């Protein structure tokens, strides 16, 4: 009999008691605040605290982490009392630690001392900060700068990231592979061409005013839970929320708000969507095209009947260009292709389009379900086109909203972590520093991987993250990192990437965002981050550092920089000791950062102006550009040609996970407990494969590059997912994602459309 004990009861709704129990919280009896006290106490607290979890906007800056399950997990993960001191490394060789899971490695606790790899003993050994900086600096000076890859995680603060890009460009390269290359790069590429800026155009307040919200390829319940409260508020006031998601996700169905105590007591919840469609993987572009087809037809009919037109002629004429070419493509696309690729019927799409037509203010949001396909840029352009039709950009309650993952991934790009930095940024850096900046584009993540595999890259410097696990083709990446001359990882906890040291390897432990950072004068420092709505705000630590040996990311970057490029151009010591000085420098270089130090110290910070949100489109045409792109000749779903053993695989997070960090082994919204090596599959497809729930299967990637990518022993979990599509957890399934399969123009790995063959394992 198949073992399905790991599949348990699914939560009825996202959030709710489960979330509170999971957080270990107890709700307090409501008590009237003491009169007059709040104002006095609040007035003394300008610094705020930014949840190190997701990048959703934060209206209650400083307390939202408590009411967001993942915020609690992120804070608790960093605030653990467990430690990984030098004695830990003395006990375990690197080879031994490589056999541990990332879950086990990270759950050992916080790193406490800078460590240097000793290849003779195969152990990390303690080293002084200065010795580490000196050796790294000497080695870096010996490389051609373009042979070094400088990775950035979305955890890095604006200050650390800005100082890092200053150091790296003074060193002489634009090699900035960063985590956005693996997630929302397609959004940036598409939106820059469409509206002149690679960011969303809405504020949190717009969600309170939208008539309709279209949510594409996104699972907010797990990835940005605070968004659920905003979706729920929208449905409560009568707005329509139309969800397009391959899987049926709890959070996009109902949500019990942990802040509503009565509801918690009676076990209530409210809807977060009013319509839910489950397109086939890679079928969103066709779905949007189908809706556009209906809007155009409705507009024709309205005009013929003498009624008000559906599309916004004034907006289109004044602010856009290129609609006619796109309209011709839309009208030439047959319904048979739209239905085949999307897996949705014309009637389904008509229902969704009618919501769009009836809405006077619409927001479109999206995430990785859209951005990790071959045709992601085209899909996002299609979404933007669709939104332009009724002028749904640059006005209250309407706009485009790519929802970012890590809390500062958007900010890092804003402050210069960009392998193809805008000319204006490099010009400003040159003006400020008085020295030339490198102008040759550098490496993104896939190019960095290519350079490591080919042997042209000699060193890897990681400002946070777990590069070896986050990237596709994990096994190949491990081999590539092993060949490097130098690896340096700035980290709070041990992870698998640290166990792939180069000939010389360092792990440099840093303060987390939850920890109080004091400078040499004892003054508490704040850092700043930018959320998905372009709000930039300050954040100060709330806990004592895990170890007296820890340095801030800013101090580590400054130490590396001083040892590598010297202090002739930048006074790194001064920067390291006072984040205000870094912000002063940023204010002189970055547009929109004027008076930075003052504006980040007001509650919620300040809005980094987005011209497109005010219908100022800084494109070459000075208008919003429609993009006219054919649908893919074939999606991966069509390529499988109805073979019963061939599927399109998407990788995704579990509920107890944030990027490569696995907090616990459960995924309660999907009803999976204690196990991560699983594959979600449609029950009818299980029949075709002749497998039962809980049985184990192997997956092999179907690619033509001669590399075998196989995983075995993954359990089958029946799930509400379209036939021919399967899903499982990242990073375990990254071994199946080819690094040489990527989105056109975005170079984002195609982690949501991997063609695989599935076979039942021998009993």
């Amino acid at each position: 009999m198949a073992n399905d004990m790991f599949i348990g009861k699914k939560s009825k709704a996202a959030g709710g008691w489960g979330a509170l129990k999971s957080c270990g919280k107890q709700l307090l009896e409501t008590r009237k605040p003491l009169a007059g006290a709040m104002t006095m106490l609040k007035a003394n607290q300008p610094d705020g605290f930014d949840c190190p979890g997701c990048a959703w906007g934060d209206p209650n800056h400083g307390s939202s982490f408590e009411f967001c399950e993942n915020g609690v997990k992120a804070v608790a993960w960093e605030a653990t009392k467990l430690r990984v001191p030098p004695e830990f490394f003395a006990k375990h060789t690197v080879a031994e630690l490589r056999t541990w899971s990332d879950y086990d490695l990270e759950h050992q606790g916080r790193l406490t001392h800078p460590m240097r790899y000793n290849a003779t003993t195969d152990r990390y050994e303690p080293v002084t900060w200065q010795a580490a900086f000196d050796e790294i600096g000497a080695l870096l000076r010996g490389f051609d700068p373009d042979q070094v890859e400088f990775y950035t995680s979305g955890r890095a603060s604006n200050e650390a990231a800005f100082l890092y890009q200053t150091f790296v460009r003074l060193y002489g390269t634009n090699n900035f592979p960063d985590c956005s290359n693996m997630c929302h790069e397609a959004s940036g590429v598409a939106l820059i061409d469409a509206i002149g800026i690679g960011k969303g155009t809405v504020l949190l307040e717009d969600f309170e005013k939208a008539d309709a919200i279209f949510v594409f390829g996104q699972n907010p319940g797990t990835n940005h839970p605070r968004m659920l409260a905003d979706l729920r508020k929208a449905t409560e006031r009568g707005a329509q929320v139309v969800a397009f998601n391959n899987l049926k996700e709890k959070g996009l169905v109902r949500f019990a708000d942990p802040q509503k105590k009565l509801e918690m007591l009676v076990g209530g919840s409210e809807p977060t969507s009013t319509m839910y469609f489950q397109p086939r993987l890679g079928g969103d572009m066709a779905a949007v095209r189908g809706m556009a087809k209906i809007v155009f037809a409705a507009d024709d009919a309205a005009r013929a009947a003498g009624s008000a037109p559906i599309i916004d002629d004034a907006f289109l004429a004044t602010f856009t260009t290129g609609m006619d070419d796109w309209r011709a493509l839309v009208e030439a696309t047959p319904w048979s292709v739209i239905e085949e690729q999307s897996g949705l019927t014309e009637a389904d799409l008509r229902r969704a389009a009618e919501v769009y037509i009836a809405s006077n203010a619409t927001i479109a949001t999206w995430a990785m379900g859209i951005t990790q396909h071959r045709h992601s840029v085209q899909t996002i352009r299609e979404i933007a086109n669709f939104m332009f039709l009724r002028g749904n950009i640059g006005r209250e309650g309407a706009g485009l909203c790519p929802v970012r993952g890590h809390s500062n991934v958007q900010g890092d790009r804003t402050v210069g972590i960009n392998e193809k930095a805008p000319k204006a940024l490099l010009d400003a850096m040159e003006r400020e520093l008085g020295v030339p900046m490198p102008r040759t584009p550098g490496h993104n993540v896939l190019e960095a991987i290519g350079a490591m595999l080919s042997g042209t890259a000699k060193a890897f410097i990681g400002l946070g993250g777990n590069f070896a696990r986050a990237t596709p083709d994990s096994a190949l990446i491990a081999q590539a990192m092993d060949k490097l001359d130098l690896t340096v990882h700035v980290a709070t906890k041990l992870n698998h990437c640290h166990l792939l040291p180069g000939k010389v390897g360092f792990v440099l432990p840093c303060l987390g965002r939850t920890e109080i950072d004091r400078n040499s004068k004892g003054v508490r420092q704040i850092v700043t981050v930018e959320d998905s709505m372009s709000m930039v705000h300050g954040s100060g630590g709330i806990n004592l550092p895990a170890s007296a040996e820890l340095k801030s990311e800013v101090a580590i970057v400054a130490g590396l920089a001083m040892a590598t490029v010297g202090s002739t151009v930048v006074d790194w010591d001064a920067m390291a000791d006072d984040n205000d000085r870094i912000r002063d420098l940023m204010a002189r270089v970055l547009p929109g950062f004027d008076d930075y130090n003052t504006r980040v110290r007001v509650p919620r910070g300040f809005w980094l102006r987005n011209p497109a949100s005010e219908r100022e489109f800084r494109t070459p045409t000075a208008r919003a550009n429609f993009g006219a792109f054919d649908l893919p000749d074939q999606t991966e779903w069509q390529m499988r040609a109805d073979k019963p053993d061939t599927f399109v695989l998407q990788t995704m997070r579990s509920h107890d996970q944030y990027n490569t960090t696995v907090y616990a082994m459960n995924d309660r919204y999907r009803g999976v407990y204690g196990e991560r090596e699983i594959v979600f599959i449609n029950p009818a497809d299980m029949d075709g494969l002749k497998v039962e729930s809980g049985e184990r299967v192997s997956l092999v990637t179907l690619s033509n590059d001669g590399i075998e990518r196989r995983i075995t022993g993954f359990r089958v979990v029946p799930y509400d997912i379209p036939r021919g599509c399967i899903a499982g957890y990242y990073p375990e399934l990254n071994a199946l994602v080819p690094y040489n399969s990527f989105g056109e123009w975005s170079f984002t790995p195609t982690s949501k459309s991997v063609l695989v063959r599935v076979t039942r394992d021998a009993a």
Partner: protein
Amino acid sequence: MPPDRADKEALAEDWTRLVARLQGNAPFADNALAAGLFAALALGISADSRGFANDFGLSHALVLREVVVLEDEMGLIAVTREDPRTQRRFLALTPEGERRAAVARTPA
């Protein structure tokens, strides 16, 4: 048993008075929130960081920061228990904290 309205108003007055006295001297002179938390503990209004945050309508994170100040820098309070997931810290005055509170509560 929760205090009735009159008790609550009296308590609020006591708390306000104590905060004002604490702020008259270092180390509370420039830190109203630390003074407020310390006074709430001394008067038995709150016993933990999150309860205090709720009572006073504050962000828990900001209160946690002042717990560090009162515990590690001033030595006036001790964390007796902590919920590792919510970061809620249960608090008590140290002997030095008791002494400081008694002094502050004594009319000049």
